[in-house]
């Protein structure tokens, strides 16, 4: 069934609906926050999952009208610390609490400039040349590591690593220049 009738934009009163609306609005930013703090991608996804469940359980404590993302980040930060303590599997890099605090404080400080980057990144990704897009897909969609990508693309690991850092630097420059040129 296709639903072609537009749904009237009423403000939701049901807590579940309100939660979903807020989660939808801030989900990307929250996901980036967790991925920025947690070096292991699978750990980050686990944490994000349990974070959303905890947020829903504690949603009664959220004051409507206050800053949802700030509230969500606080919960996420706790989940990250908890996960670190309870981790069954040791990831390649585990982050120390003092390090997490320093990074989280810096993210909070520049949070406004970071939150606009996601949209700009989409534009910048579309401008990448074909071979670089392919590398981005292998690394971030297929989640292959450097050695797997090296085999797949018949390059050396050092070359793959160099290319990936160049792509990220180019994306960063592109994102920043787009944000500077658009009115704040």
């Amino acid at each position, binding site marked *: 069934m296709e639903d072609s009738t537009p749904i009237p934009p009423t403000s939701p009163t049901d807590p579940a609906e309100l939660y979903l609306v807020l989660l939808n609005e801030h989900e990307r930013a929250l996901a980036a926050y967790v991925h920025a703090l947690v070096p292991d991608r699978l750990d980050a996804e686990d944490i994000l999952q349990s974070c959303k469940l905890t947020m829903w359980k504690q949603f009664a404590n959220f004051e409507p009208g206050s800053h949802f993302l700030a509230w969500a980040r606080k919960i996420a930060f706790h989940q990250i610390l908890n996960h670190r303590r309870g981790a069954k599997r040791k990831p390649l890099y585990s982050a120390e609490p003092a390090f997490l605090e*320093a990074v989280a404080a810096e993210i909070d400080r520049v949070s406004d400039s970071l939150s606009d980057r996601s949209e700009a990144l989409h534009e910048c990704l579309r401008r990448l040349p074909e071979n670089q897009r392919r590398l981005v897909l292998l690394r971030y969609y297929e989640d292959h590591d450097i050695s797997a990508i090296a085999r797949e693309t018949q390059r050396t690991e050092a070359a793959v690593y160099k290319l990936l850092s160049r792509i990220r630097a180019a994306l960063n420059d592109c994102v920043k220049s787009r944000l500077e040129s658009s009115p704040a």
Partner: protein
Amino acid sequence: MNFHDHIDRSLDGQLSPEEWDALQRAVIGDPELCRDYVEKRWIHALLEAEGDTLPALLEEPQWVKPAPVIRPVAWLAAAAAVVFFGASIVLFVQGRPAPVVATLIEAENCRWAGSDLPTVEGAGLGAGTLALTEGMATIRFKSGATVTLEAPSVLEVESAMSCRLVEGSVVADVPESAHGFTIDTAKMEVIDLGTRFGVTTTPLGDSNVFVFEGEVKVNREDHPEAKHVFAGSSLVSKVGALPEPADQEVRRVEPPSSSSPGPGWTAVSTATGRGRDAYVRRGDAHGPTGDHPLLMVKHTDLAPNNERRALLSFDLAGVDRAALGSAKLVLKVEPSGLGFSSLVPDSRFAVYGLIDEAVAAWKETDLTWEAAGPLVEETLSTNIATRLADFEIRKGSPNGFVEVSSDAFVDFLRSRPDEIVSLILVRETGESDQQGLVHAFASKEHPTAPAPTLWLQTPDVQ
């Protein structure tokens, strides 16, 4: 030491643990380095967080106009509606007009993304791309060939006689009028010689063709000679040593909220306490499956060794079950990467509760079909199990949540004396060809999707 270079290397796992510790200490003590770390890490984090949507973003052809901006509130309300009412959203981007070469004749439970062709039933299709994220869609080409597309798939319609499967699965039914109909993939070109056949391909180009009836000719990039494949056979073309397609599917992040009924309910998953989950497959080709991320379930009369059943145990210690008001079992349906949806009907599953304590005490580490005894008898004995509820997964339905409940289910949970309750999940419907879909549900080992969960409504939790 150049810590700025360390940052980049840390993003790709190129630092030794010692170098990583040194980087952490340096970031703590140096605000400027910390700024640089956050800046570089953020781009990487956005790419990781949006990994799933990258193909749609990157594969969108340049000439397609961006989708009209949907007002955020309307979109959010619509998104909420999807979760609450299961309605589907159809997004499409108007493309250039092109001569019509095919018609979209059927679209079941479909959700589309990044398509530049119209996606409403009955629409005429010119050359262009269809990207199906959920459901099943059937296209009839002007030549008479019909192609059924199973999500997630991306198909490029080229002409009345050809199309290209970028990724995903299709089943083609080709009448005599359309002999020579061609499906192209990155690795092979499949030319019909009067058949019904299926083709799958991964985003990297690993391709498989299965012939159900008749014969096809396959040209492969890396083989000079064409290969003929006949009914009942398949041909696989792999790119290097890459993971199985199933591995690419386990990366979907879903808000668990759609399964949370709200305050007053407690969740107990198979990951809680002494909970367990596993599946068994006749023949035990893969040994015990207790640590597998998917619980696979299948019933077939055509290939007995593909029969699979799943077992779930929940640790209900501490739950006041006498006062249980209501209960439901929530499972997250995941793509198994095995078989075609087109070859199974709407599928009915039954949930049985185990009432024999000895049988219910199966272990994740050594449970096999061979050792499962009464658990794998064709008809479960009423001495060991009671049928509690059933549910249906419709053909081509999205990979969402299923919720199962019944009075018998609540009674069973109330009355079982043991702290651990065990359930067995059986598919009751079969398949029309042995390449039929294997259904899968996330297990507690799944990296992103929620584990099988029992939601219990008890009055003391407010």
